[in-house]
C-alpha cells in the first residue's frame, strides 16, 4: 500500500518535472501562424469566440529562459527595457494595447504595430517567437510560476518559482489579469 502510493507520487512528480525541464532541440512550435487574431474585445452582436491559443511553452522553464535570452539578443530591450518600458510600452504591467493573449502577442511581434513596433516576420523563426511570447507573458505574471526562472536579475514584479522567493509578496498590489481579456 505504502509502496504503491510512493510509486504514484514519484510517477506524478516525474511527469510534472518533465514538462518544466523538457528540452527539444528541434522545436515543433504550437502553431506557426495563429489565424483570425482579434485585438479588440468589441464585436458586433454577441461576442463570439473568447478562447485563446494555448502556448504549451508556458510551463517550460527552458523555453522561457530561451525567450529571455532572445529578448536581449533581438534588442526588444532597446525599446521595452527589461520589461519596464522606455521608448516602447512597459511589458510588466497589466495594460495591453493589443492584447495579452499568446496569439495576440505573437501577432504583435510578427506583424508589428503602428507607431514603432517593427514587424519581425521572416526574421524570427516561429518557435522563437513563441518562446518570446512566453517570456513576455511571464514578465507580468501571466504564466504559471512553475515555469518561471528563479534566477532573474532584471526587474520582475512577480517572483520566480523557488519557494524562498515565492514567500515574498509581490511589490505591486494588483490582481493578475484573467487569462482571457482583450
Amino acid at each position: 500500500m505504502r509502496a504503491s502510493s510512493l510509486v504514484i507520487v514519484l510517477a506524478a512528480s516525474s511527469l510534472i518535472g518533465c514538462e518544466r525541464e523538457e528540452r527539444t532541440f528541434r522545436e515543433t512550435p504550437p502553431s506557426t501562424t495563429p489565424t483570425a487574431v482579434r485585438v479588440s474585445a468589441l464585436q458586433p452582436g454577441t461576442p463570439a469566440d473568447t478562447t485563446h491559443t494555448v502556448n504549451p511553452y508556458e510551463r517550460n522553464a527552458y523555453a522561457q529562459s530561451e525567450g529571455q535570452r532572445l529578448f536581449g539578443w533581438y534588442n526588444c530591450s532597446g525599446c521595452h527595457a527589461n520589461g519596464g518600458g522606455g521608448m516602447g510600452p512597459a511589458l510588466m504591467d497589466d495594460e495591453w494595447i493589443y492584447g495579452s493573449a499568446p496569439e495576440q502577442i505573437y501577432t504583435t511581434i510578427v506583424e508589428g504595430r503602428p507607431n514603432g513596433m517593427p514587424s519581425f516576420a521572416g526574421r524570427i523563426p516561429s518557435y522563437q517567437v513563441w518562446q518570446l511570447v512566453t517570456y513576455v507573458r511571464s514578465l507580468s505574471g501571466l504564466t504559471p510560476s512553475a515555469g518561471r526562472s528563479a534566477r532573474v536579475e532584471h526587474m520582475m514584479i512577480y517572483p520566480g518559482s523557488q519557494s524562498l522567493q515565492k514567500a515574498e509578496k509581490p511589490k505591486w498590489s494588483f490582481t493578475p489579469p484573467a487569462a482571457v481579456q482583450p
Partner: protein
Amino acid sequence: MIGRGGPDFQHVLHPAGPQAARIAHLGWFAFVVAATVWVITVSVLLWAIARARRRERADEPVPADGERRMTWGVAFGIGASAVILLVFLGYDLVVGRTLSPVPSAHPLTIEVNGHQWWWEVQYADTAVHDRFTTANEIHIPVGEPVLFVLTAQDVIHSIWAPNLGGKKDLIPGYTTSVWFQADTPGVYRAQCAEFCGVQHAKMALFIVAESRAQFNRWAIQQRQPAAKPADSVAGHGYEVFVTSSCVMCHNLEGTTAGSHAGPDLTHLASRRTIAAGTLPNTRGNLAGWIVDPQRIKPGSHMPPNMLEPKDLDALLTYLQSLK
C-alpha cells in the same frame, strides 16, 4: 582532423612556444623524478620480500631489534621525499613566475569573448578604427608575445591551446588575461577546457601562427568591410542574408546586418572551419549548417533555416565570396 596544420597540432608534448616548453619541461622533470623514485621503491620492496622468504626457508630467527634497524632507512626515505617535494614546489613556483608577466610593454592584444559555443575574437591593440572582429580563428605573428584579454558572455569557459599555453578561465563580468607566444609557425587547435553546456566539446578555436608579414597581410584584409557581391547570384545571396533571420544575429561589416549575438561573418570565407572548429569550411558543410544546425550541434543557438533551394544556393555563393 579539421584544419590540421601538422601531426602535432594539439599536443602537450610538442610545445610550439616558450610557455608550453617550460611547462613541458616541468612535466618531464616530474615524470622522470617520479619514475626513478617509483623504480627504486619497488626494487627495495622486491628485495625485502625476497630476503624475508630466504630467511623463512632457512628458518633464520627474526632479529630482535629488526624494527629499530629500520629507523635510518625510514628517516632517509622521509628526508628524501621532503627534499624532492620541495624541489618540485620550487621549480613549479619559478616556472609560474616566469610565465605570468608578459615580456613586452606593448604586446599585440587580442580580446577573446567566450559564448555558448563559439569564440568571439577582437584585435584591440591598434587605433579604434583599426579594431576588427572575427570568430573561432586567431592569427598571431611568430616569435612575439601575444596578450589575450579574456571574458565570457554567458557561462564560464576556459581557453587551452596545448601546444602554446593556457588554460585560463573566461568568466562573465570579469576580465582575465594570459599570453602566448608561438615560435614555430603552424596551425594549433585550442579547446574550451571548462564544461560550459551541451556543445562544450564542439567549442574549438584555431590559432594560426605565421610570419609577421603574412600576419600583417591577413590583418589588413580583415579590416576591410564585407566584399561587395560580385555577380547577380551573389547579389541575390546578399538579399537573402539581409532579409531573413541571418540578420538577427550576425554582423557583416559595411552592410545593414549589424548584430553581434552570433559570430561575425564579414570574412567568413577566409576561415578554415565553421561552427567553432566543428566542420571544415566547405560549401556542402555550410549548407548543412545553415539548413539544420541542430543536427550538427544539437542545442546550438543557431535556428534551422528553411530556405528555398535557389535562395540557399545564392546565399552560399555570397558567403563563399566573403574572403
